[in-house]
Every structure is written in structure tokens, then in C-alpha cells.
């Protein structure tokens, strides 16, 4: 097994608000290996963007307190001096933000903004940095890169702007790109282009990608592993195959059910998860999703841990035959479905039955 490029353990991100302390991320652990695409999926407000900023060491700037551990090739980033973090930001971990219009400085040329990043990390003459910026734009799939480098953000289309943002992220050949909702502000055809661009770069340069999105549909084609977040916690994580084929947590079912399908027979209302996430100021002690979950029962009021719960073989032959041997059973499950963890106490066979809504997975 290759060493983890990025290892996040027990990440906590808290804010002091006027109405009391609030925990935006509550004990998130994940790992991104070299060249791997890991997706963090969740509704807005689930803490995924706060987690991304904390990994970049940027959330302190926004008034957050961060605890836990974020290691890049073994080097601890939380609590590292700002000078060291600046060396890493942009050079080894680069970020692509959601809205490329507001995330690019409106009064400076695209090429200059990229060259500025290159010169922050490498001692290069201005002209050479500008050439590198143009090359980077070209690499991000922008035709006519010389001319685009002279453009201001408002002179480019949304798709080009996001490509420029990606070009900026690529400019110092980082090991990891954190893409925070990179396609949300774009229309659907451009979304597909930007995603395939990310996939291509990963294939060509072996750049790892931490993709943050609210849209499981975006994840399907390109992610190796998926982390589903809800109310600051990971509620399910595993390989893309595990999460898509054998989703364990009702929250994941809801997200899967809300992906529009082209093969739907007649015009249907797009499925959505009813209700709203709990206030991060007053989180329930038990399952945080229980309030919105149609399958909740008494045990959901008790605290739930993130454990290997998925039955081997998609739960097909999991019966109640090994009751009383919880530990053994779990060890067995972890062996059969390694790394597939979830936070739902429903029995695997119940999950298998209840996650089917009208012939497909839903809530």
C-alpha cells in the first residue's frame, strides 16, 4: 500500500459565534493517496468547505479554531508556522474555488495572477513566469492561451474562467488539488468539460484531487473514494464502488436518489431530502440525520460511531446467524469490504430492503 499523500485525522473546525461555539467539522478523518481522486460529498452546510479550508491552513484567517491532524507526506500542517504553510500552499497543495468570477481578482490580468503564484514559489524573472503561466493555461485546455493570459476575468466565459482557475492551481505542479465545488457555478455541459479536464490532468500528471461537491452525480465518473458528510461528520465513506453499489447510510441514499436520471419514464419531481440539517449550535447526541430519516428508530438517539458495518457481498447473504459476535462480525466485514465505514445502526439486511424506492436507491 502506497503511503498516504494527505492524511487527515480527527479534524475539528470550530467557530465562536455570537450565539455560542459551533462545530463546523467534527472529527473528520480521511486519506488521499498519490494520484487518487477522493470526493467529499454533502449538502451545503455539512462542513465540507470548512474542512477544505482547514486542510489549506486558511480557516484561521476566517476566524476558525482548528484541531486534529492534517499531514502532508507525514508532515503535520496543523500548528505549522505560517511561513512553512505558505511554501506548501499553491506549490504542493493548490485550490480551485467554487465561483471563478469572484475568486479571481477582477482588476488583474489572468496571466499576471498565475505568474504571481509561480513567482511566490520559484525565483524566476517576470517574463519567464509569464511564459509558464501561458503554458499552464494551455495545459488546462485553453486554446489561444497567449491572448487569454492578457484578458481580465470578466472578459472570459464561466467555463474559461474555471479553466483559468485550474491553470492557476496547476502552475506549480502541485501534488494535490483541492477543488471546492469546481463546477457548481457552471452550466451542465461546461461542468462535464471541467470534470474531464480534472480527470485528464490526474491521469497525465498523477495529481491527486480532493473533490468537494454536493452532487454525487459529479463524483460518479471520476472519484476513487467517497466521503459523505452530514452536519460536520462523515456518515459514510468507502470506495466509489462501495458507496454507489452498496450505500449504507440513509443520507447517502437521499443524495443518490436526488441525482436526476435521464431514463426516468415520465416527468417526475426531482427527489429531495425533506427537512433541513440540524443547527450546528444544537446538535442531537445521537444520529444527526435521524430527524430527517424515515427509517429512524429508538437506537438512533444514541451516539453512533463510524464503523465497518456493511455486510459482505452487498448484504446478500448476511443473516442474523452470528448474533453475539459483534466484534468478530465486524472484523469479517472489514476484511470483505475494506474501508467501507458508515454511521447507521440499521441492520444490513434492513438497509438493503429499505434503500430501494421505486426500483432504485432513494430515501
Amino acid at each position, binding site marked *: 500500500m502506497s503511503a498516504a499523500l494527505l492524511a487527515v485525522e480527527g479534524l475539528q473546525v470550530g467557530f465562536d459565534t455570537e450565539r455560542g461555539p459551533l462545530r463546523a467539522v467534527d472529527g473528520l478523518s480521511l486519506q488521499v493517496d498519490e494520484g487518487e481522486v477522493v470526493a467529499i460529498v454533502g449538502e451545503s452546510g455539512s462542513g465540507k468547505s470548512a474542512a477544505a479550508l482547514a486542510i489549506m491552513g486558511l480557516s484561521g484567517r476566517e476566524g476558525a479554531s482548528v484541531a486534529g491532524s492534517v499531514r502532508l507526506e507525514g508532515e503535520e500542517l496543523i500548528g505549522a508556522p505560517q511561513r512553512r504553510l*505558505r511554501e506548501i*500552499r*499553491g506549490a504542493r497543495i493548490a485550490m480551485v*474555488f467554487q465561483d471563478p468570477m469572484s475568486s479571481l*481578482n*477582477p*482588476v488583474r490580468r489572468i496571466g499576471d495572477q498565475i505568474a504571481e503564484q509561480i513567482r*511566490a514559489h520559484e525565483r524566476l524573472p517576470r517574463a519567464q513566469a509569464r511564459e509558464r503561466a501561458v503554458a499552464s493555461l494551455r495545459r488546462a485546455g485553453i486554446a489561444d492561451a497567449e491572448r487569454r493570459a492578457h484578458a481580465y476575468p470578466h472578459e472570459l466565459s464561466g467555463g474559461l474562467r474555471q479553466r483559468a482557475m485550474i491553470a492557476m492551481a496547476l502552475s506549480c505542479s502541485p501534488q494535490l488539488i483541492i477543488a471546492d465545488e469546481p463546477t457548481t457555478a457552471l452550466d451542465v455541459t461546461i461542468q462535464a468539460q471541467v470534470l474531464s479536464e480534472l480527470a485528464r490532468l490526474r491521469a497525465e500528471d498523477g495529481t491527486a484531487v480532493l473533490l468537494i461537491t454536493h452532487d454525487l452525480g459529479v463524483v460518479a465518473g471520476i472519484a476513487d473514494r467517497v466521503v459523505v458528510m452530514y452536519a460536520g461528520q462523515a456518515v459514510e465513506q468507502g470506495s466509489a464502488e462501495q458507496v454507489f453499489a452498496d450505500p449504507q447510510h440513509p443520507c447517502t441514499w437521499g443524495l443518490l436518489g436526488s441525482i436526476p436520471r435521464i431514463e426516468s419514464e415520465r416527468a417526475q419531481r426531482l427527489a429531495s431530502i425533506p427537512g433541513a440539517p440540524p443547527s450546528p449550535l444544537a446538535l442531537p447526541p445521537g444520529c444527526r440525520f435521524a430527524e430527517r430519516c424515515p427509517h429512524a428508530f429508538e437506537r438512533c438517539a444514541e451516539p453512533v460511531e463510524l464503523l465497518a458495518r456493511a455486510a459482505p457481498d452487498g448484504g446478500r447473504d448476511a443473516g442474523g446467524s452470528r448474533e453475539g459476535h459483534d466484534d468478530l462480525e465486524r472484523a469479517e466485514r472489514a476484511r470483505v469490504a475494506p474501508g467501507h465505514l458508515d454511521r447507521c445502526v440499521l441492520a444490513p439486511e434492513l438497509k438493503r430492503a429499505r434503500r430501494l424506492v421505486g426500483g432504485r436507491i432513494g430515501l
Partner: protein
Amino acid sequence: MIVFALRRIAAMVAVLFAISVLTFLLFQVIPNGDPAVRLAGRTATPREIADVRRQWGFDKPVYVQYLRTMEQIMTGQVVSYTQQVNVIEQIGRDLPATISLTVGAGVIWLIGGVILGLAGALLSEGGRLARLADRLLGALAMAGISTPTFLLGDVLLFYLGYRAHLFPLGGYVPLTEDPVGWLTHMILPWLTLAILFTGFYARVLRSTVLDTMREPYVRTARAKGLSERRVLFAHVLRNSLLPIVALWGLDLAAVLGGGALLTETVFNLHGVGQYAAQSIQSLDIPPILVITMLTAFLVVVFSALTDIVHAALDPRVRLR
């Protein structure tokens, strides 16, 4: 660019016409405004007054008087009622003092406002003590804005001029005659005028900087691994200066056009503002009219210049 210039010239003509008509009419309806009475002198008989009225054309319809005055202004022949001197020449004599005052004070208040505003914004993000310092700066700015010019000017004159003999007690020395004398005569007026604007600019810049700091592109700048100094100057301050530049151009125009009359009067600079103040006291229409039109002219020209600078600094702005 040509369209821009044509538009602005058309706007200028319209503004000058409107403002001159309004000013002219205003002095027709003011009580005790009859210029013939004033020109004829205190002991004039009704006959003498009537003579003056006919001689100066005050018996003609208002629009004829207006057109005649405008013709005199455009040909540089306009004469003031009270002192009967050429108004354009008088303003030409007063303008160097006003320009000296405006440009010097303008530079001081721009730099002072930017430094204090930036300091305030940075302090307000800091710890308890820093926030206290920011409050203090804010209070100082408010004090600067609300201190009357005549009070501040007189206090400075009294302590630094009369008591300490550090500065001369007012008056204007032309720069071409005596550069050192010019400087020593200008320092107190500069400070007096600049303090008002410095406080105001500091408040504007502080809030703009705080807003800009929350812009996503500033976060991007940090994510690029730039140093805090680079983030602050190349992104936050650079973008926060845009509204300040716009403000500065218009304020300079207003002060040039006589807006600094209190400072000019306190320090006896014999500037355009002081001339305007004297003319208003004696209801002397020609200089008032000319100075009003000069102000309007300067505001239009400076706002066009400001727009050009703004467009150069912000590519999203189109010159129209």
C-alpha cells in the same frame, strides 16, 4: 474615447448653462439685490440710481441681461459691481494660492487617509488592544471631520504662529518668488484643510479594506501561497483604492473651485474661495457667477479625468 470626450463636453455645456441660469436668476429674486442701488452709492438720488440702471443695462429684460453677462464672461470683459475690476483677471490672481492649497492638502489627505484607514482596518482585525487603537483612530477621524475649520485654523495660528513663532501669521507668498516662504506659509493651511478630509478618507478606506478582505479573491491570493504583505498590498489595498481615487478627483475639483473658503479666509490666502465669500457678502453677481461656473467646469473636467484614471485602474469600467 471620442464618444466619451464628446459626451463629457456636451454634459459640460449643459451643466454650465443650467448652473449659470440658476445662479443668475437667484440673484434677481434676492431682496436688496438691486445692483443699481449698490453701484450708485449710499447717497445717490433716485435719478442717479436710474442713470446707473440704464447705463449698466439693469432696465433690460432678464434674459438680455443674462446674455450680455455671459458674453462678457466669455470674452473676458466681465467687471465686478462693487470694485469694478475685471473678474477674470482677479480670479487669475487668486488662483495660484487656491491651487497651492488644494494640491498640497489633497496629497496630504490622500496619503494620510490611506495610511490611517489601512491601519484602522488592520487593527480592527487584531486583539483587544489593537481594536482599542482602532476605536481611538476612529474617534480622531470623527474629531477631524467635525472640528470647524475656523476653530482649528485659528488654534494652529495662535499656538504655532503667534505663540511659538514657528509659522507666519497667514498670507500667501507666490511659489515663484520665494519657495521657502511659500512652503512656510502653506503648511498650516494644508494641515487645516487636510485634517477634515483625512478623517473622512480614513473612514471610507477602512470600511472598503474590511469589505475587500472578505472577497473570495483575497482567499485565493492566500491559497496561492503569497505573503501577507503581498496579499495586503497587491490585492486588498490595490482594489480598495478604486473608490478613494474617484472621491479624490471630485473633492479636488470642489476645493479648487472655491470650496476651501474657510481655510483661505482664516489664513488670509486671497484665494478664489475668499473672493467668492467677499462677493457673496456684497451680492456682487459677476464674480459669484464666474466662480460658480468655474467650480462646475472643474467638477465636470475632474470627474472625466477621474473616470479615465478609474478605467485605467479597473478594467471592468468602460468609458462612456
